[in-house]
């Protein structure tokens, strides 16, 4: 239960952090994908139920706080969550390089889906150069953000009191 509270609180604080961070013009104006990194972290570390709770809570906050219709995160987060969850048993999930790879791929996939949704619905104009810059920029930012989020959440979860399931412990 404590871990569930930590998950919801962490995503809430993650949303605030993402809101506070400035957009980086050199990466196409994209912000570090903190909420997407939380969704990925819980997809890699939790059971399907835990993953879905994290993914929906993060997506709801992301789309609720952004302009335009619900959609980009509500579709994108489950996609990257399900894909990451499917391969989590076949990889070393706490390896830094693995997380950098997943962070980059997840953020790029999310940016691609967002581009598709915004272009299809006519909410944002499409410029190839700008789109490419955003894809590359989001990949680089995701590469940095997911390891940081993982490190923070692993540290916080280790601080939590451990559940002692055996009488002799």
């Amino acid at each position, binding site marked *: 239960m404590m871990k569930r509270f930590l998950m919801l609180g962490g995503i809430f604080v993650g949303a*605030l952090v993402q809101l506070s961070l400035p957009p980086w013009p050199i990466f196409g104006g994209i912000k570090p994908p903190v909420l997407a990194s939380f969704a990925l972290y819980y997809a890699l570390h939790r059971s399907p139920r835990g993953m879905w709770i994290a993914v929906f809570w993060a997506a709801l906050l992301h789309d609720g706080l952004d302009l335009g219709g619900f959609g980009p995160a509500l579709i994108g987060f489950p996609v990257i969550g399900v894909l990451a969850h499917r391969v989590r048993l076949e990889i070393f999930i706490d390896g830094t390089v693995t997380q950098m790879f997943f962070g980059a791929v997840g953020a790029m996939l999310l940016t691609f889906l967002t581009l598709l949704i915004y272009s299809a619905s006519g909410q944002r104009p499409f410029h190839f150069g700008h789109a490419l810059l955003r894809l590359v920029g989001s990949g680089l930012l995701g590469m940095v953000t997911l390891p940081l989020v993982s490190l923070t959440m692993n540290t916080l979860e280790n601080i939590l009191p451990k559940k002692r399931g055996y009488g002799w412990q």
Partner: protein
Amino acid sequence: MVLGNRKLIYASIAALLLIVAFVIPPSLSLKGKGAVRGIMAPAERSTSGLGQRLSEAASAIRGMGGAVEKNRELSHELVRVQAELSQLRDADADNQRLRRAFKFQHQQSRTLIPCDVISRSIGGWWNTVRVGKGKADGIRENHAVISPDGLVGKTIEVAKHTSEVLLVCDPACRISARIKDSDTYGLVRGGGINLRGHPIARMDFIDKDTEVLVGDEVVTSGLSGGEGLSPKGVHIGYIVKVHKDNSGLFQSAEIAPSATVSLLDYLFVVSADGEKVP
């Protein structure tokens, strides 16, 4: 069987999400967003307040001390005086016309609602800021938003206690404008943020025969739709580049919007009805 069920569940979830993304009407979507923003607003205010205090503390440590507060007060006063001056100019122009025509025209009064910026766009896809006042404070959609540097943008997606402000530099923002010196009209639309982080805008549909110079001031024309949008004569920015197309009917110009986003921590929403808002 289990695999089939799982596929069905995934397909149902995908269908549901697509419906949410593309079918739900904007009014319903806005209600959902209002609820999320309502939950987040107090935390956003605290975070923003903390950031401002830290910034002011840093300024105080640098030796400016009381000048920070004084500067803030003077900036507030400056905006009020500028708005008043703009209204007086309008009144003067009206007066001249009335003298000629012997007619009286009712002049609409406007009130400025001061708002704190509590956060910015979460994804970076939109050029927006969120202010900590909404419908409960008298703000409606499509109202002009100004700062001491000029026009910031317009309100869009107004919830009960928060409002999104679409900045002048966003591609979705379009405002009727006028080049002050040559009295030529055009349409200003956002061009996003360039690689140096500077907001850019573009003025289109400028009369081809008018001489437009770099450095000319662009102001609002007061012709934009919506009852509170764009009062006349509010500064938008200066022309930095002119594009002439000999084969076209119009010319266009690049503008540097003066109300740069990074400097804002408070701004004013123009209330159309002139009512006193608490």
